[in-house]
């Protein structure tokens, strides 16, 4: 197990109020980390920090093993403008090679091959010429996942990847992510609202809660007071939470 990402006593503030205080955790390659927490607990702030878009107010985020922030495969939340965007699946996936462009104006043959390989990897070959806006929500997420794989081979950062998907497609998406993690040994960081699935799939949980955040193995999380509290409460509220997500 080699270390991939390390947060040391990291604090973030947002509009002059601290959201994350003194957070430390280490991510090894091959881990599957789920970041959970209520709205406003700093999930998106931490995401920006990991991507290198926001500097922590205190502490350090260290990328080990030659990892660069450009090499994190990122799956952002979809914007409404994207849903009816006229672009072919290939164009969208290829744009994942953006960071490799540098000052070159056009993509190379190699970039195109990588894009094709990742389309194949996610089993969406038959969609390659389709228009992104004609796809279903689940297909669109697969396309965006293929794009993320084009930019990051080691680490994927997924920001609420199942928002707006129906239960069956949600399950498929989780399976796909698990497959990438188990078979291709890609390290996963997933921001999620769905604590039940987080506990089911992830190897590690980071529960953000201002200065009392929890980080550890999933099995320890379930036993911890915080995990027990949120997990049992969440199970009781599963029906309402499920409705909210749809």
């Amino acid at each position, binding site marked *: 197990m080699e270390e991939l990402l390390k947060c040391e006593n990291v604090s973030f503030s947002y509009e002059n109020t601290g959201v994350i205080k003194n957070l430390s955790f280490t991510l090894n390659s091959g881990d599957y980390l789920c970041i959970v927490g209520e709205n406003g607990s700093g999930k998106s702030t931490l995401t920006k920090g990991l991507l290198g878009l926001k500097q922590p107010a205190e502490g350090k985020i260290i990328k080990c093993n030659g990892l660069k922030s450009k090499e994190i495969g990122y799956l*952002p939340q979809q914007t409404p403008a994207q849903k009816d965007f006229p*672009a072919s699946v290939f*164009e969208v996936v290829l*744009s994942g090679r953006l960071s490799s462009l540098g000052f070159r*104006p056009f993509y190379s043959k190699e970039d195109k091959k990588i894009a094709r390989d990742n389309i194949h990897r996610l089993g969406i070959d038959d969609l390659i010429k389709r228009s992104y806006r004609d796809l279903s929500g689940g297909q669109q997420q697969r396309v965006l996942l293929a794009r993320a794989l084009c930019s990051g081979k080691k680490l994927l950062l997924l920001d609420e990847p199942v928002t707006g998907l129906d239960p069956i497609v949600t399950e498929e998406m989780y399976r796909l992510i698990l497959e990438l993690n188990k078979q291709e040994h890609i390290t996963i960081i997933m921001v999620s609202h769905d604590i039940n699935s987080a506990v089911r799939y992830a190897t590690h949980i980071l529960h953000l809660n201002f200065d009392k955040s929890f980080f550890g193995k999933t099995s320890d999380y379930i036993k911890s007071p915080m995990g027990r509290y949120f997990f049992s409460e969440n199970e009781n509220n599963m029906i309402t939470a499920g409705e909210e997500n749809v």
Partner: protein
Amino acid sequence: MFDIMSMFQHSFMVRALTGGILISLCAALLGVSLVLKRYSMIGDGLSHVGFGALAIGSAANFAPLEFSIPIVVVSAFFLLRISENSKIKGDAAIALISTGALAIGITVASLSGVNTDIDNYLFGSILSLSNSDIVICWIVFAIVMVLFVMFYNKIFAVTFDESFAKATGTKTGIYNMLIALLTALTIVIGMKLMGTLLISSLIIFPAITSMRICKRFKTVMISSAVVSVVCFFVGLVISYQYSTPAGASVVLVNLCVLIIFSAIGFVRDKINEKKYLKGDLNETAQSKKL
């Protein structure tokens, strides 16, 4: 039959056609990105700011274009900032700025007593393009084309998904600024052709029209450019033959093409839907190549 050849024996018509085609191309390319980023109204706002600046410029006896270009460029950056800032609602702010600038322009122009200019700027005066205007058109065209080809892939990525582009280390702010700058240039020059009230149509119509039937970003771009140039040409010929206002004729031709493209897109989607229901997936995928 239209007497097109005789039409272009007038040098002012040749200038109108050259300038119009150059600006239409710029506007069409920029329009795709602006419309997809939900920034359509920025074009409208900028043209009104441009009107205010032109009115002040000509009242103060400055060279109108040289005076208004920097003002519109600065407003473009400003408008973009407003749209990015979620605390102020972008559409409302644009409406405030554009009506405010229009009011300033009209007041200044009527106080200084140059009313013919007002008409020209509001409704365009495509036939009064001078040779130096054409030179400026060529310069703007060259800048837009070179930057667009150089940064095509980056503009696509920033338009499609700004947060992803940012995460992969792209300076998205620079590309947004670049688009705003080029839009500002295109609009100020285009106002002389189309007028303040109609210039944003050159930006919005071809993009929306092309999106009715094109499914790829690249084809949307190419189709916008073609639609824009063809509509401008047809509009200009109609305006010459029937003595209709040039700017308005171009917009009306654009409107007709939009209706035709929408109808084609609608019918094709219906046909595809039927094919899809029959389970003829392969054929659907084939027909979606565009």
